[in-house]
């Protein structure tokens, strides 16, 4: 019995074991879950160990003499101070550094992509279309402009949603919900393809019922 056959049997057992959760929580699901979590945690431990501690820290940082990596190494060591009650407070410094640096870096990224590009993409001549006078393009332009504007009104927190403002916000949430509906259908279809993939595995790779 080759390795691939053993692998297929284990994979089939785990696939069916996870699927038994559809009925209810049971011992086979618990075994599959424990194997999955244990293997994945072990896999990631080894991956992170070799990628970070060995390759980046030891090979590049120590042996390669790239001292700029020592900033990260020092922060990492400070994080380990959490293991001690006495000096555990030191671990707050690298956490503060990471959160602060990330907030600063993302400020630019989000401001550009979520604000400026969105505004730029929305501002258009409503009557403009690729084919002159094509009503579908004109309707599309109006939907984009109205949807973005009313969506922004919905996410405006400084004013109560009442009167005209409230009505516009309601239009905004309708736009959002219609978008969600479309996204829901699209994503469900992609999930179905994953299910089909597992069934295909069971029938072809494991049971050899289809080729």
């Amino acid at each position, binding site marked *: 019995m080759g390795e691939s056959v053993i692998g297929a049997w284990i994979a089939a057992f785990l696939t069916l074991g996870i699927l038994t*959760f559809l009925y209810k*929580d049971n011992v086979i699901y618990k075994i599959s*879950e424990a194997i999955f979590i244990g293997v994945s945690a072990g896999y990631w431990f080894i991956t992170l160990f070799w990628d970070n501690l060995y390759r980046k820290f030891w090979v590049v940082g120590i042996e390669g003499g790239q001292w700029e990596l020592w900033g990260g190494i020092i922060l990492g060591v400070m994080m380990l101070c959490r293991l001690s009650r006495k000096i555990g407070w030191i671990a707050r410094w690298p*956490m503060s550094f990471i959160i602060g640096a990330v907030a600063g870096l993302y400020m630019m990224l989000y401001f550009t992509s979520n604000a400026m590009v969105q505004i730029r993409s929305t*501002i258009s001549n409503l009557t403009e279309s690729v084919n002159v006078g094509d009503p579908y393009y004109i309707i599309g332009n109006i939907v984009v402009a109205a949807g973005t504007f009313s969506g922004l009104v919905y*996410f405006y927190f*400084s004013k109560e949603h009442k009167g005209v403002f409230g009505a516009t916000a309601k239009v905004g949430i309708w736009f959002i919900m219609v978008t969600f509906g479309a996204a829901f259908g699209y994503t469900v279809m992609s999930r179905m393809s994953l299910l089909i993939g597992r069934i295909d595995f069971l029938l072809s790779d494991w049971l050899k019922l289809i080729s």
Partner: protein
Amino acid sequence: MLTNQDHSFSKSHPCHIIVIILSFVFSGFGASAQAEDTATVATYSSDISPAVDLPPITLLAVDTDNDNGGSITISWDDAGYSELPQFRGYEILRRSIQANAPVLVGTAPHGSSSLVDKSVSDDTTYVYYVAATVGEERFVSDSSSHVQSTWQIYNTTLTPLLIALIIVGGSVIFFIETAKRGRKLFLRKIAGLEAVNEAVGRATEMGRPILFVAGIADIDDVQTIAGLTILGRLGRTIAEYDTKITMPTRTSLVMTAGRETLREAYMAAGRPDAYSDDMVFYVSDEQFGFAAAVDGILVRDKPAACFYLGTFHAESLIMAETGNLIGAIQIAGTAQPAQLPFFVAACDYTLIGEELFAASAYLSEEPRQLGSLKGQDVGKAVAMMLILAGVLIMTLASMWELDTMNQLQQLMRDLFSLN
């Protein structure tokens, strides 16, 4: 003969030395240009035939604007060579002033009139030539003026962004100071947040734990930070009610941050003794391994309330549907557009997009967070006005050929780099 009109060095684009407070306008300083000597290009001798019937191609070589150096833009006026029947294209040649012969740095097809040379070194001065290839002959232009690439300290294309940041940043500071002075800042109610205390109360009454998942992203994701901020306020209520909380995490850094957040919350509630590191624990970095573990916790511990606040991907429905199955009251919040529909379908309350970020400010009522939210609202108001004005101007300008409208339209194009 190839003639070199080596003019005295003149920089047409000097550095814009502007003292700025925000580092975003820096274009970067680290990129180093390729040395010319290493370029593997054909070397041209100086016996290339000059144009006979047509005037020579005129060209202009200048340092590329708003970049971090290492780039020169060459533009040329064709003078009619591209109309010749055997015209094949342009060859752009470059010679450093220390070298004798020019080297080929690029080619350009029919109809083109410019090329950006990104293989230059900032510390070298160059001259350029453009050769029109007609059949087997090359008609080479006179040399360009001396040119040298430099980096610009201020990127002028980012000026609208700077203005917007000043408006929003200034508003945030203003409102924070206003809130610190004790002035009440109004924020509308957010439905999902009203249910937070209800959910904690329900868990307390039922004697069951609360499950909190701060998403599957690491601490470098702003949604994770937003989720942890809400956890801080939620943790205080949980500590006051003496309810149990379970928080599985996908990454070690989120686990550490989660523990810090909860520890602070329990201390703020005057219950440091009730806090335990076991409340927050690492599961697995594997996305679906983590999802399987959360599902197991849901069906075995049967939490009365579940909070999913952060970045989620395909596991969102797996968790939310299982939570729904056990009858837990569920509050979710994410800015992942693809996952929001699932949360909306399976949870009792969903914080949509920015509501997640607004939630912590609303719950904490802290001046800094409230001020930030109010400042962002100013940004949104400006965005709404710009969109409204922009759409009206662009539409009306196309309908009425008025000078004022056209000028306003051009202003909008310049401001937002519109076509």
